[in-house]
């Protein structure tokens, strides 16, 4: 087996990123879309730490990853509060229901 290096992590993160993007495109459930976004953020975090370990050799990758984790928590808190309001208005979290303002 070839030893694991930067490329392995980058390819893994690329596939995770594409899967997350695909989830966001394909799902109609608002919470499903949110979960897709979480996948994107995790792919980015894997990249940050892999570059930190194999290429840059600095601590900044870990620090940025910590920022990402905290911001993801904040994002989910707000998004869920919005979804709960959405749900109390439309009795569903199907994002297609929220098209009342289309021209």
């Amino acid at each position, binding site marked *: *087996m070839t*030893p*694991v290096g*930067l490329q392995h*992590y*980058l*390819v*893994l993160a*690329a*596939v*995770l*990123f*594409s*899967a*997350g*993007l*695909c*989830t966001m*495109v*394909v*799902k*109609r*459930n608002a*919470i*499903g879309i949110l*979960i897709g976004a*979480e*996948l994107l953020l995790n792919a980015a*975090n894997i990249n940050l*730490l892999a570059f930190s*370990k194999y*290429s*840059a*050799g*600095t*601590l900044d990758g*870990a*620090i940025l*990853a*910590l*920022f990402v*984790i*905290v*911001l*993801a*928590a*904040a994002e*989910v*808190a*707000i998004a*869920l*509060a*919005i*979804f709960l*309001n959405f*749900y*109390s*208005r439309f009795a569903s*979290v199907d994002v*297609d229901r929220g098209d009342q303002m289309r021209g």
Partner: protein
Amino acid sequence: MDNLDTIVFYFLAALALVGAMGILVSRNIVRTAMWLLATLVAAAGLYFLLGAAFVGAIQLIVYAGGTLVLIIFGVMLTAKNPNVSYTPRTAEIVLGVVLCVLLAGALIFVLHGTAWPNNVKSVEEVKRMSQAQRDLVGPNNPDATESTGRRFLGDYLVPFEVLSLVLLAVLIGAAYLGRPKVPVIGAPRGVNPPPGQEGPRK
């Protein structure tokens, strides 16, 4: 030892990929969240493998233990019938999947064509450094956690403080968005909206 690392990497990578595919394919929203849990745990394992134990632990505590629990909480509150699923049109699914496969292919193609620089310091080099120099180094740094703390209160002080402001704003915003829309019987003063200003009743 290198061999063990390789095996662990492939195991965690497989777990993360299976989780990602599960998220993509699963119709049931709680199942989707469970697959995300698998991916998050695998990612945390990868962080441990990459020598960032602190980030891995924080990932488990905040992401897996807080954020995803919040999502599952949201699912429980918004799913009247937990097995309900929303299906998009087939054409949309096909288009989305094709585009994302193309994206993944393009990314992997570019990644294989690029040579990344390698500025990683060895263990001996890190040992010879002064404290201030060592704080900049991630891999092979024995006190990476302490260095992270010093960097947060040093170079990254302003983003760190801005982040706490963001969290405060999120706290207030979430409390505002989540306030009761219809009067709650027996609630303490200030929780219910004043008479005449209640939101729409549904």
